[in-house]
Structure formats: C-alpha cells, structure tokens
C-alpha cells in the first residue's frame, strides 16, 4: 500500500477515536470550548488529509461535519443527544470507509449515496441553526443565500458561494480546466423558487434541469420538512444549486422569467479551489492524484506534468504585492518588509537577474525609511510586468529573449535535482501479520526441536557410552535453549499490542447501551497499556462486549433501584487489565446488584442443567459459574440488549479457544467481578506430563493447583465417589486410569496415591495418576478428522523424542464424571 495512504488510515483512525471521546466528553461537559475545538480540528484534519486521495464522498462528509461543528462552536447550534447520535453515525461510516480503504484502497460503492445522505442531514442541522437563531447571521448563514435582502440581488459580484466547493472534485477540476483554457466560463446558480410558484405555472425542476451547460446540481429544502400531516404540497420549499458551463448571458437569458428568484455568480478559475499551479497536461488532474489514488510526492515523474517556473515566479511575486497591500498590524511591518525583500531577492536571483539583489536592498532601505511597503511593491510590480510581457512573448513565439532571463541560465533548478526521496529514515516498520505468524511457527518448531537434545544426550550416554559427548550435547542444549527462549520472547514482543485496542470501543458502547436501557453508568478503564498477543487482544474484544453488556443489562440497577438501595444513582463499570506472570487478567467489575447463588442453583435445576444430586453438593462459588453453562439465563425478562443467555456461553467458548479461563466473584447487592485469565501468547503452551497405565498425558499447567501424595487411608468414600480432605477443603478424586480405561496400578493400604489437584471453573478436582513428570513447552495441535470427536482430549503435541503426547481437556473430563 502507498505509505501515505497507510499513514492516512492510521491517523484518521486515531482522530475518529479522539472525536468519539470528544463527543462523549461533551455529554459530560456540554459546550466545553476546548473539546469543541478539538472535535472541529479532528474533522478538519481528516478533511485536509483526505484531499490527497480520490475519496470525495469521505471528504465531503467530514466537511459537512466540520461545518456543523463550526456552527456549534459559534454557539449557533446546540449538541443535543440526538445530534450526537448523528455524529456517531458519521464517525462509524467514516471508520468503515477507512477499513475499506485499508482492505481495497477504495471506498465502498455505496459511499457516494451514504455520504450525500448523511451530509444532507448534517447540513439540515445548519438550517435548523438559522431557525433557532435568526439574528446570529454569521458568514455561514449569509452563505446559505436565503436572506431576503440577497434574494433581490440577481447578480452577485462578491465572493463565490462556498457551496461550489461541494461540487465533486472531478467536475471542479474539469471546470477549472475549461476556464483557464479560455472556455465559456462557469456560472454558479442559486435558484430559490417562489413559494407560490406552482400557481404561476412554473416548473422549477424542469427549469433547473434544462439550465444551459448544466454540469452539476443539487436540490435541497430551504427548511426541514414538516410532519406529513402539516405538509402543504402546493408550497414550494426547494432550493436548487446548479453549476453550468456556459456564458453568464446565456444562463441569465434562460432564467429571465424567474430572475428575481435566482442568484448568479460567475465563477473565477481560482474559486474552484483547485490548487495553484500552471496549466495541466490532460489526464492527471491538478490535485495530487493519479489513477491509483495517490501520487507519491518527492521528485518529478518522467513524463509527468511539470510546473512552469515562470508561472510560479509570477504567482509568488503577485503574492508579495498582495501581502504588502494587506492590512497587517504595524508591529509586524518590519517582518513583512524583510520577508518580502528576502523572497523578492530570491526570486530575482533564481530568474538570473544579477542586479536584483541590489535593487531589492535599495527598495527595502527606502521602505524602512518611509515605513511603507510601497517601494518594494513597486519593484515587485515592475518585475511582474516584465515577466508577464516575457511570458506573452514566449507564448506568441516571438524570438526575443526576455530581459530578466537574458544574462542567466533558465531557472530549471526544479525538483529533478533530487529525484528520489532517499535518505529517509525508517523507524517504524509495517509488516504483514502473516510473516510474523510464519516466524512464530518456526520459533515454535525450534522450541520443540531443541527438546530433542536431552534425549540425544541420554542416548549418547546410555546406548553409545560416550559420556563426554553427552555432556557436550547438554551444554550445547543449554545454549540453544537460551537463544530459542530469547528468540521466542523477541517474536512474541513483536506481536504484543496494548489491550487498549480492545477497550477502545467501550466508552461508546456503554454510553449507547445505558441510554437505551435508561440507566446511568460510568465507565472506568484501567491498565489499558497492558500488552498481550495481538490475536489474544483481537479475540478478546467480542467476549468483553458480552460481559459489559451483561453488566449493564443485568448487573447495574436503574437509578431508582439504586437510590432505594442507598447507592449513588450512577452505576460504575470498571474494565481492568493486569499482567500476572505469563497471563493477562481482564476484569469486568460492576457495582450492581450482584448474583444470588441460591437463585442460580434453582434456575439451573429448573432448566435441567444441574442434577438433583449436584444441587446438594454444589458450592456457592461453583454456582456462580453456572452462568457460563449453555442455555442459562437469569434475567426475569429477556431484553434486546443481552439476548437469551447465549452470551456468557459464547464468552467461555472464546476464552477456551485461546487457552484461557474465566472466573466469577459476586456479592449480593454489591456487585460482580468477572475475570478472564488469558495467556500472553497463544503459540506455546506449557503442560505437565503425568503417567497413567504406562501412557503419558499432558495437563495444561494453568489448571494445576498442586501435586500431592495422599496416603490411601486418608481417601474417604462418599456414596460412590472418593474424596480427600486437603487443608480443610473436600476435594473429589478422579482415577484417571479408570476413567480413560488405561488401567494402571492402584496403591494398596499403607501406600500413597499421586494426586494432581486441578481447578476448572472454580471447581477443584484431584486426578489420581501413577507418576508425575516434568513440565514442557509444547505446540498444541487440535485433533483433526475422526479424532476430533474425542472431546476428552484438547489436542496433541510432538515431544522432543518424537513421541506424541495427548493433552487432556479437563472441562470435558469433569463433565463426564
């Protein structure tokens, strides 16, 4: 992608985010000038930067937003929540378009219509503003052109109506081109048909459509449409804005019967807002665009249009005369004079006028003495007239060498000198994620491959009896191990992004939802700078939305309920990210009504999620985790916000997928905390290897609480189950050998059982195994094909010695007990 476009995309996303925050801030502190200025600037900047690319609909939409914000800034318009909603809609659309630019380097096809629709609604606000405050006739209002006194003036000589800048770029460029090439010129027409015009037999639409040389037109209403029952279809409230490429006389002739309802303006070439510069060769327009969207600046392209140095010099000299004649403050006079002198001297030197410097110095001296810019202006005009004469002569092909150029080389020191934009330092590298992923896969394989070295060392020692070699292999393993770990760390670091990426959308979500549900909610975010793997952060966004929605919908009470419970009417939702070892904890904490374990148990039983037997033994803590069970919902009423309890189920599924876990804490009447524990990186999993009946199995390390040896006489039998008391907790036991039908030895009386205590969703379980082995880093591959049906296993991994390790899926194991 063009780096400029990439930069634009990043910048615009930031600005949209800023704007979104700005609007939220305005709701708390309405009319805050700092925030308003910030918002205005954000739109302004997007508009400005978007001009580099062929994305007219986007430019025009943010332009409209900018204009409305300007009116708000001037105090002509209030930002009601409904209007803020409209702005959010605009931000969303622009955001989507930026996504589309990133994906396809162009706007979606419907952008034009969407832009017109939204921009129209925005500009509709402006006419509301004129209604709200008819006296506040700033420039913006006057430009609307519907003030009575202006209507009579049939032909305006003043400034061009600003709306001509809304004319699409290509048409503006074309008209500019026509006018500088001595074409018929262009006329901007504002046609405001009389309210009673239908009775006079006028057909305004036809009149407008048939305007001679019509190139562009837009129909608008002069006032917002009244409700249908009040609409008077015989009253004309339309306004036409038209641009015609025709001589003004011809246009005037066409409108002669309605001249009192029409304003004509003869558009000068510079009014088109087409950037300065000499005439263009056909094809590429005067803006920095080419057929692919942008032209890379810096250096001139072979065959590309070249600016005429003489024309540039003329433009600069003209600008100096205008600057000298401008009504600047007296205290910058010396600055103006000196800078003009500098520029004049420079231009003359460039044009090869050897005596130029001296003349400029003299003129500056006189100007200083007189305290006026006149001497410099006279000099500039003198040079100008000579240049223009020279230009004319050149055009006419007169073989006379123009005076200013007579004794110097032609000013050809244009950008060709440094054709390439080399020497730029690259500090930030943008890399396709697929490349990083490929790198990560390789690192993963390296981590596993190096695990083969200890086996090799043992083989060297035990089979080939070369102890020295074994030792060297072990040493080498240590070295490779260190490098592999650093490499893994480095690659992981590349993929780390702050979780703020996932948090960004929440201020908006919380605002919209709480408005919808009639609740007052304050969102507090903490630890947004905490980093995690890009994939984890991306996958996090959706579950978090479910959680926050649930908190607002079910957790936070209505303001009335809260006050009755002695709480502040505004609820609080806290989004917090913390790094904890090699995990990231993302917590959603609300101070709402909390969850009642008894209610949860009863509901789960009624819905058949909980057996009668489990109902008796389930602890309060375990009961809270029932909210993640499929098909569970505690809401008395199903709302359109958080659905039917599928949300929390989905949350757990997604957290499982990235190898994380969920836990819940809740205090009735005080609030709820839901914590997602996610791995920092998903590429490498650490498991502990256990042995059962001669088979080795992997158990994810994040589920393991402790390993203990339990004398057989401490194992209690409760009904058909076995359990053991560990530090005052009753931990049920599960004999893995029996469950998995692997056999294995069971300890006799007076012996000890090896028990691996694991925790699944807050529930502890002791796995009885034959032997514990070491922990290893593995790359977990999910089971595929027919094997995928074996839900008891989360997947397989290749061990260093080439064996395949099956990794247990503990949640499934618990479920089938």
């Amino acid at each position, binding site marked *: 992608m063009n780096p400029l476009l990439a930069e634009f995309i990043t910048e615009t996303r930031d600005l949209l985010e800023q704007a979104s925050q700005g609007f939220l801030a305005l709701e708390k502190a309405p009319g805050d000038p700092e925030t308003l200025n910030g918002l205005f600037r954000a739109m302004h900047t997007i508009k400005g930067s978007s001009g580099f690319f062929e994305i007219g609909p986007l430019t025009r939409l943010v332009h409209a937003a900018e204009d409305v914000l300007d009116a708000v800034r001037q105090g002509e318009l209030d930002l009601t929540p409904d209007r803020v909603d409209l702005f959010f809609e605009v931000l969303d659309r622009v955001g989507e378009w930026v996504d589309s630019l990133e994906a396809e380097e162009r706007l979606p096809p419907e952008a034009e219509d969407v832009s017109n629709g939204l921009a129209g609604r925005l500009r509709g606000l402006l006419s509301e503003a004129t209604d709200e405050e008819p006296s506040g006739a700033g420039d913006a209002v006057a430009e609307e052109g519907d003030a009575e006194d202006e209507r009579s003036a049939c032909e305006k000589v003043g400034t061009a109506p600003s709306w001509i800048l809304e004319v699409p770029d290509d048409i503006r460029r074309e008209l500019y081109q026509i006018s500088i090439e001595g074409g018929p010129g262009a006329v901007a027409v504002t046609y405001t048909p009389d309210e009673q015009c239908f009775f006079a037999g006028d057909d305004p639409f036809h009149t407008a459509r048939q305007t001679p040389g019509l190139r562009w037109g837009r129909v608008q209403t002069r006032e917002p449409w009244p409700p249908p029952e009040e609409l008077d279809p015989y009253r004309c409230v339309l306004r036409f804005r038209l641009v015609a490429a025709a001589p003004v006389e011809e246009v005037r002739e066409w409108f002669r019967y309605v001249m009192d309802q029409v304003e004509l303006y003869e558009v000068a070439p510079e009014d088109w807002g087409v950037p300065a510069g000499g005439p263009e060769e056909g094809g590429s327009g005067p803006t920095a665009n080419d057929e692919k969207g942008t032209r890379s600046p810096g250096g001139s392209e072979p065959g590309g249009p070249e600016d005429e*140095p003489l024309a540039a010099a003329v433009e600069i000299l003209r600008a100096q005369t*205008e600057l000298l004649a401008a009504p600047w403050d007296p205290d910058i006079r010396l*600055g103006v004079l000196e800078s003009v002198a500098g*520029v004049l001297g*420079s231009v003359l030197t460039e044009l090869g006028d050897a005596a130029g410097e001296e003349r400029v110095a003299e003129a500056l001296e006189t100007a200083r003495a007189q305290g006026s810019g006149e001497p410099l202006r006279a000099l500039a005009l003198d040079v100008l007239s000579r240049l223009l004469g020279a230009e004319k002569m050149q055009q006419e092909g007169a073989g006379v060498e123009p005076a200013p150029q007579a004794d110097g080389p032609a000013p050809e020191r244009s950008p060709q000198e440094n054709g390439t934009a080399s020497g730029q330092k690259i500090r930030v590298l943008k890399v396709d994620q697929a490349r990083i992923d490929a790198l990560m896969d390789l690192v993963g394989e390296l981590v596993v491959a190096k695990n083969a070295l200890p086996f090799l060392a043992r083989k060297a020692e035990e089979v080939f009896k070369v102890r020295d070699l074994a030792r060297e292999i072990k040493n080498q393993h240590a070295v490779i191990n260190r490098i592999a770990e650093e490499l893994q760390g480095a690659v992981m670091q590349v993929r780390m992004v702050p979780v703020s990426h996932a948090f960004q959308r929440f201020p908006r979500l919380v605002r919209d939802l709480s408005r919808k549900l009639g609740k007052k909610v304050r969102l507090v975010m903490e630890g947004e700078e905490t980093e995690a793997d890009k994939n984890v952060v991306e996958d996090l966004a959706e579950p978090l939305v479910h959680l926050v929605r649930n908190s607002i919908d079910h957790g936070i009470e209505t303001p009335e309920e809260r006050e009755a419970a002695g709480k502040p009417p505004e609820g609080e939702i806290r989004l917090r990210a913390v790094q904890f070892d090699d995990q990231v904890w993302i917590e959603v904490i609300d101070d709402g009504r909390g969850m009642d374990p008894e209610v949860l148990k009863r509901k789960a039983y009624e819905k058949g999620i909980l057996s009668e037997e489990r109902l008796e033994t389930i602890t309060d803590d375990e009961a809270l985790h029932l909210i993640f069970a499929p098909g569970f919902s505690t809401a008395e009423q199903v709302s359109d916000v958080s659905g039917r309890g599928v949300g929390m189920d989905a949350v757990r599924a997604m957290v499982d997928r990235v190898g994380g876990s969920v836990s819940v804490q809740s205090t009735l009447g005080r609030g709820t905390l839901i914590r997602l524990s996610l791995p920092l990186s998903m590429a490498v999993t650490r498991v502990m290897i256990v042995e059962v009946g001669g088979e080795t199995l992997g158990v994810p390390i994040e589920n393991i609480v402790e390993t203990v040896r339990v004398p057989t006489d401490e194992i209690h039998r409760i009904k058909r189950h076995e359990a053991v008391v560990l530090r005052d907790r009753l931990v049920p036991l599960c004999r893995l050998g029996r469950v998995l039908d692997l056999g294995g030895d069971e300890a006799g009386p007076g012996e000890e059982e090896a028990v691996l205590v694991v925790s699944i969703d807050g529930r502890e379980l002791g796995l009885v195994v034959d032997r514990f082995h070491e922990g290893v880093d593995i790359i977990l591959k999910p089971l595929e094909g027919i094997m995928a049906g074996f839900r008891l296993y989360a997947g397989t991994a290749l061990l260093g010695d080439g064996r395949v390790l099956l990794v247990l899926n503990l949640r499934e194991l618990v479920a089938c007990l």
Partner: protein
Amino acid sequence: MRRALIVDDAVTVRMYHRQILEGAGFEVDEAENGVEALEKALVTSYDLLLVDVNMPKMDGYTFLKEVRGTPELRAVPAIMISTEAERRDKEQAYRAGANLYLVKPVRPEALALRATLMTARGGSR
C-alpha cells in the same frame, strides 16, 4: 543545505510535505503546532516555514504574526497552506504576514518549485 520547518498537526500532511521538500533538496524539521514551531525556530535558523492554519495550542495565523514580530525570525519566508480556497482565508493569511498562500492538496511539483524559488538566497548563503 536549505532548511525548512513544516508546521502542521496532521501527520499525513507533514509526511506528504516532507517528501516533497526533501525531494527538492531541503533538510526538513517538523512541528505539530505554533508553540512547538516557535521553540524550534528560535533555536534553528530556517530558510522556509510551511505553515498550516488550524492547529491546537497556537494556530498558523498567531504563529506567523509572532514570527513577523520577532527580530531574529521576522525575515524568514513563509508559505501558508490551508484547505480553504476562499478569498477571505487568503486575505487573513496575508494579514498574518504569509508570503504565499497555497490550497491543500498542493501538487508536489508546484510546492517544490515555489519553495525553491523563494529560498534561492538561503541556499547560497
């Protein structure tokens, strides 16, 4: 080598103009707003200022007036670049002491050429 200072709050715009000016042989510095630009201009001597209008903290007009009113800076040529093509915006730029007013987006060749023409003496000094 000639030195230019680009004053604009938009990264994209700065990047665009930087490429053009570097292509024209300038050494380029950037500032995000008028305040930062003034600080830089007082330390480094520039041959050209390329100034945006709308910026946080200090806008382009205020910045230019400050420049023209400060003895050490006042003679530096300045180009004001704005999105507005209207006459009154142009007039306001001259009022603030701009030597040239260009409308965004500016064609690379056009800007390069104008910047070069306006700073010929700066380069030879």
